[in-house]
């Protein structure tokens, strides 16, 4: 194992990937090493948003441009470079990259501890929705009861059914692909999230279990929810 193996760490963070490069070693060598590491797991990293932390290493503009190009070629988006070096920061500015992982406006605000969650708006239906009944709401919709075949829910946000979901549900109806649909038993006539549509697999022998449906890679998938 060479010294360089320790020079690079790759970590998943909320914003994507964080590549940390220790300030030791020659830039040309470490950057080559970094690309090699990424290529080893190209499938896994593909499409990721990448942030780079080079500590106090000065990285010149042409060096950063070259790395940026190589990452772009691999379908990786470099969006931030974190450094204590002025040279590196100025190179990052030239490439219009962020120099901090925290968005600007959040940095500016005084940090005040507020334990009160603001939450979201929506409605609660405290009974079973039967055939022919329909609920439309711009927020989240929660049903305590079943949603029977022939009933319909259209929500701007998420849809939660504490019961059997047999009808039609459209979550994220105004285009929110992050919306989810949850039910204690998810066997809808049809599910829609934003612009995606799916129907339930035809399986009469299944056992009821809680599931959550969401959009993953361009299609609606349902996952079993285990407490």
């Amino acid at each position: 194992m060479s010294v360089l193996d320790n020079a690079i760490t790759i970590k998943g963070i909320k914003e994507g990937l964080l590549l940390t490069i220790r300030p030791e070693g020659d830039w040309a060598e470490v950057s080559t090493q970094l690309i090699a590491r990424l290529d080893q797991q190209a499938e896994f990293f593909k499409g990721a948003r990448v942030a780079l932390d080079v500590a106090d290493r000065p990285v010149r503009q042409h060096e950063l441009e070259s790395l940026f190009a190589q990452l772009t070629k691999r379908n990786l988006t470099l969006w931030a470079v974190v450094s204590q070096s002025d040279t590196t920061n100025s190179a990052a500015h030239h490439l219009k990259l962020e120099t901090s992982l925290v968005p600007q406006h959040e940095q500016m605000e005084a940090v005040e501890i507020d334990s009160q969650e603001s939450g979201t708006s929506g409605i609660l239906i405290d009974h079973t929705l039967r055939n022919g009944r329909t609920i439309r709401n711009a927020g989240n919709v929660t049903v305590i009861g079943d949603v029977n075949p022939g009933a319909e829910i259209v929500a701007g946000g998420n849809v939660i059914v504490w019961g059997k979901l047999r009808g039609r549900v459209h979550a994220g109806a105004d285009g929110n692909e992050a919306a989810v649909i949850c039910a204690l038993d998810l066997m809808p006539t049809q599910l829609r999230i934003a612009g995606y549509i799916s129907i339930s697999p035809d399986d009469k022998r299944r056992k009821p279990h809680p599931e959550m449906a969401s959009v993953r890679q361009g299609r609606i998938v349902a996952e079993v929810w285990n407490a």
Partner: protein
Amino acid sequence: MTARVITVTSGKGGVGKTTTTANLAAALASLEQRVVAIDADIGLRNLDLVMGVENRIVYDLVDVVEKRCKLRQAMIKHKRYPELYLIPAAQTRDKTAVSPAQMIEVVRELKPDFDFILIDSPAGIERGFRNAVAGADEVLIVTNPEVSAVRDADRIVGLIEAGERKIPMRLIVNRVKPDMVRKGEMLSIDDVVDILSLSPIGVVPDDEAILIGSNRGELLNGRAGEAYRNIARRLLGEQVPFMNLEANSGFLSRIARLFGGSGGS
């Protein structure tokens, strides 16, 4: 003393509303209740046929609400049960000939003189159905163990639940064929109850006697007739166990007898 007003409805046509109304009316009358049945299916009247009084119709429900006759004049007495009457529907008019308010008025006038007022609702979710449930104290939802009948029953229950008044509803599962349920060709009672979330007051087996009965205007004997009599007794508050639809039929009951026998020896 005031009558209980019970509407028999279903959403879907042909599930046995009229047969149910006629048989419950007769069963209640045989239990010495004073009963009047009202046919709310204006334009497609059938209850008079099933009750065997077609040839004695002079006035009908529309004549009553349009004040061409007195209420008593439109009431046809059943031959067999002196305390059973029918108010027939008009055949030459349609559902708009009567309004919900007029139905409530007719029912209000009948209430002091009877124990039960049974209203036979037309199929559908429009005016005729609205008329039929307008004056109801209770609703009996009739359905068959098949997907489309259950789906329509669910629609009706949803409409009644969404109304201003809370009307108690109970379920009658009609035309049950135990053989088909066993083979999975028909929904089971549990499936039906699971979807509708209503408590059943009766399960009526499919019975060829019903066809013969409704063709002759006679009320039923046999297993379906027994099921209707049980429903009538339950309406009167009696605890009547549900009939064993499997009795004397096929494999399962033989197994049950086998186990019963070995347990006893």
